[in-house]
C-alpha cells in the first residue's frame, strides 16, 4: 500500500504503475456527468471554469445527503465510462488524475498516456467505508445540481488502485488475462 499526497506531483504520477494499491491524502474535487457537461460548456464559451483543473484530481461521485453531524453521506465512485466523452478535453485543460469505477474507452486511455495522467479505480459500492476517509467538504459550484454539484474534498488515506497508468497500461484491458480459464 503506497501513501500518495494530493495534488499529484508529476514525478509521483510517473512512478505509479497499473495495479498499485494506494492511499490518497489531500484535496480532490467531485464532478460527475452534469458538472462535466457544464464545465466544458463554460470552457467552450471562453469563460473560466469554477475550478482550475490543472494539476488536480477529479472524483466521480454523487454522495447521499449527510446525516446530521456528518460531513458527507455515503460516497463511492460512479461509472467512469459516462465521463469518457468529456475526459480528453479535461486532460487538455491540465487535469492529472481521476477516480471512478470501471473501464475507460480506448480514446481516454490514449489521452491519459499522452498527457501523462493517471486513472484510479475506487471500489464501487463501498460507499460507507469510503465516506469515512473524507474529512472536509466544501461546496464550490453548481449548487443547483444537488448531488452532482462540484465539491472540494479533503481526504485521508483514501483507498484506490491504479487502473490506467501514465504509460497507458489498463487493468480493465489486461487484468482478466491472468485469471481467464
Amino acid at each position, binding site marked *: 500500500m503506497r501513501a500518495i499526497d494530493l495534488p499529484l506531483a508529476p514525478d509521483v504520477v510517473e512512478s505509479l504503475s497499473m*495495479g498499485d*494499491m494506494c492511499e490518497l491524502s489531500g484535496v480532490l474535487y467531485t464532478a460527475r456527468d452534469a458538472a462535466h457537461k457544464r464545465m466544458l460548456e463554460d470552457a467552450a464559451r471562453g469563460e473560466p471554469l469554477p475550478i482550475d483543473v490543472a494539476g488536480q484530481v477529479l472524483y466521480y*461521485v*454523487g*454522495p*447521499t*445527503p*449527510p*446525516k446530521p453531524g*456528518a460531513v458527507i*453521506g*455515503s*460516497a*463511492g465512485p*460512479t*461509472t467512469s*465510462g459516462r465521463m469518457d466523452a468529456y475526459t480528453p478535453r479535461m486532460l487538455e485543460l491540465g487535469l492529472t488524475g481521476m477516480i471512478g*469505477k*470501471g*473501464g475507460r474507452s480506448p480514446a481516454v486511455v490514449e489521452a491519459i498516456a499522452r498527457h501523462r495522467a493517471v486513472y484510479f*479505480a475506487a*471500489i*464501487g*459500492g*463501498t*460507499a*460507507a*467505508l469510503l*465516506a*469515512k476517509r473524507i474529512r472536509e467538504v466544501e461546496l464550490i459550484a453548481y449548487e443547483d445540481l*444537488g*448531488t452532482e454539484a462540484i465539491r472540494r474534498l479533503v481526504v485521508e488515506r483514501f*483507498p484506490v*488502485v491504479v*487502473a490506467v497508468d501514465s504509460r497507458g497500461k489498463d*487493468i*480493465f484491458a*489486461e*487484468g*482478466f*488475462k*491472468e*485469471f*481467464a*480459464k
Partner: protein
Amino acid sequence: MRTIDASEVTARIREMSIESNYHVDPAYVRKVEEAKAGETSSLGLMVLDQITENAALASAERVPYCQDTGVSIVFAEVGQDVRIEGGLLEDAINEGIRQGYRDGYLRGSVVNDPLRRVNTKDNTPAVIHYRVVEGNRLKLYFAAKGTGAENMSMARMLKPSDGREGVIQTIVNHVFNSGGNPCPPILLGIGLGGSIEKAALQAKWALFRELGTPNPDPLVAELEGDILEAVNRTGVGPMGMGGDTTCIAVHVETYACHIGALPICVNVECHAHRHAEVVL
C-alpha cells in the same frame, strides 16, 4: 373482501426503502465472504474484503451501503379479495418512497423525464409492477436498483437454433464486455422465453429469489449452474480488475414462447443487493 388502508402501504414502503439501503442482503455478504477462499487475485481479495467491511459498517452506523440508492422497484401482488381504502395504491407506494428517501437520507436519483432530466429530488416515481393473485392479502416487494448494474443489462431475440449453448455464450460475452461497470461480483437475473417485455420482467423478478436457490425445474437449475461456471471462467473478477469471483449466483426464470423465438433478457445486479418484502 378485506380492506387495507393506503397509509399502511405508505408506512411499509417507507420502512423497506430505508432498511434495505442500510442493510444489504446478508446472504449476498455471506457469499462474498465464502468467495474469498477461492479468490487467487490479491487485488480481488482486497476488493472482497472491502465489500464485506463496508456491509458491516453501513449496518452498524445505519448509513447507505452505496451512494447510489437506486431507482425504486416495487412488485405488488394484489389478492383479488383485497380492497385498498383511502387512496390509490400507486400514490400510497410513491408516498412511501418519498418519505423513506427523505427520512433515511437516501439520494434522490430519479429524473422526471428521459429528455427533460430534472431531478424529482425524492426518488419518485417508483417503477411499479402489479400482479393480481388469489386471496385477501397484499404482498409488496421493494428493491433499490443501482444504475451501474442496471445499465449493463441487456435484451436480445436469439434464434431457437442458438439453443442452450447460444444462451450461455450470449451471457458470457455480455458479462465479459461489461467488465467492472456493474460492480462485480454480480448476481444475474435472467428471463428466458416469453416475449421481449416478458423476458425483461422475468429477469428483474429473478433477482428477488432467495439468493442462490436453484430454479425448481432441474433442467433450468442445471443451466444456472453452467452459466455461473462459464461466467466465472472469464477472469473479469472483483470490480473487473481480474480474478476468480465475477458472479456469485445465477437465477433463471423461463416462460413459454413462440415457435420461432428465443427471447433473453439479462438483468445485472451488483453487490449492493437491496431488497425487502412484506405481506399485508
